[in-house]
């Protein structure tokens, strides 16, 4: 129940109720984006954002930089392991 799925916000459908269309792997669904908007990041700025969707609500933006840094660390680990096993 506590799982979520990543999707991309493609359209704002109701700015007052903070509703948007999110594309999840080609399936489009209306979700509530109240948890991810604030004065610095109003609804209209959310288009193109990748978010985690849980029970019809976008719960957080996916931080691309943090994801890339984690993957870079894991890639370095894989490279080191490959070197060890080839040595």
């Amino acid at each position, binding site marked *: *129940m*506590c*799982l*979520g*799925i*990543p999707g*991309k916000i493609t359209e704002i459908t109701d700015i007052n*109720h903070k509703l948007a269309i999110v594309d*999840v*792997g080609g399936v489009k669904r209306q*979700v*509530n984006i*109240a*948890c*991810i*908007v*604030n004065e610095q990041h109003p609804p209209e700025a959310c288009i193109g954002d*990748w978010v*985690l969707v*849980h*029970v*019809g*609500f976008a*719960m*957080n933006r*996916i*931080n*691309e930089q*943090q*994801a890339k840094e*984690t*993957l870079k660390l*894991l*890639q370095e*680990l*894989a490279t*080191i*392991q*490959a070197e*060890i096993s080839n040595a």
Partner: protein
Amino acid sequence: MKYVDEFREPEKAEALRGEIANLSQQLEKPIKIMEVCGGHTHAIFKYGIEEILPANIELIHGPGCPVCIMPRGRLDDAIAISQNPNVILATFGDTMRVPGSKTSLLQARATGADIRMVYSPLDSLQIAKNHPDKQIVFFALGFETTAPSTALTILQAAAENINNFSMFCNHVLVIPALQALLDNPDLQLDGFVGPGHVSMVIGTDPYEFIAQQYHKPIVVSGFEPLDILQSIWMLLQQLVEHRCEVENQYNRLVEKTGNQVAIAAINQVFAVRESFEWRGLNEIPNSGLKIRPEYAQFDAENKFTIPNLKVADHKACQCGEILKGVLKPWQCKVFGTACTPETPIGTCMVSSEGACAAYYKYGRFSTTLPNKIVEQSKVTISS
């Protein structure tokens, strides 16, 4: 999909497996790590993670599945509400087959109750708008991940003045449950894989007491196979170096202080109950949420007569011991015989996030090697 496939790459998993094997040799004793969240339990079985871990690392499957910990009495209460001919009860699909003391919601529906499965609590608000002559009750449950969405649904109902909508609130809190586990002398745990999506809401700060007061490490983890392997690797590093810290593997979604909008919505609508009953863990102080008096018109416990009975678990069911990690599912007397996903006796067999359902579905159990899984030896990390 964004950052799903990238966290399933086999060569990186192999590198992590090697690192975990190296670190495990430096452990002074066999260790037990609890993954608190049912979502992690499901992923661990789906990707065969448990079977590629060294023999001196044991995973204990914790009580973090909101369906599994729902006491039978609360289920009976939900069914009692649904028996009112004027009521449409709406809930998430996970709850439909959970056994109450006599029937499940699915069985209650088969005998005439109007019970509907919804994807989002907002869908139940739409049902209320479509049926102004009925009372719509949303059977709300879940940890802090789900609580903001139900809180925001009540706020929307208030804003739109929807009078035929209420909520039967059964939300629970992860921190008091962790405290209860840490205080349980039966459970000797060496560290925790912390829940990813609960932490997305509450942040990592609330776990500091685990490191500081109980001197156990915890790593908040994502749900892809590399996320879980990396979290176990990070925990092992802490244990080998005799560190006890709160670390965050899932930093692409989890921040130290959580999501302030979500926390504010929870605090505005809900108050903490003095005590709440958990299946298998009994009453835990300050572990549940109730609707604040300001929103009493949306509180089903205020609107309907509810039996509110305490109902003991089925005698044959050992979900309690399994939720505490004291027993493995296959050690339960009725596992796989009287209790299967088609005819569950206990909740752990109902939800896909339950430990019994995961063991049953993926066929990974052994009566000869209680500590390790033998039926499948090859890890499958591909999506």
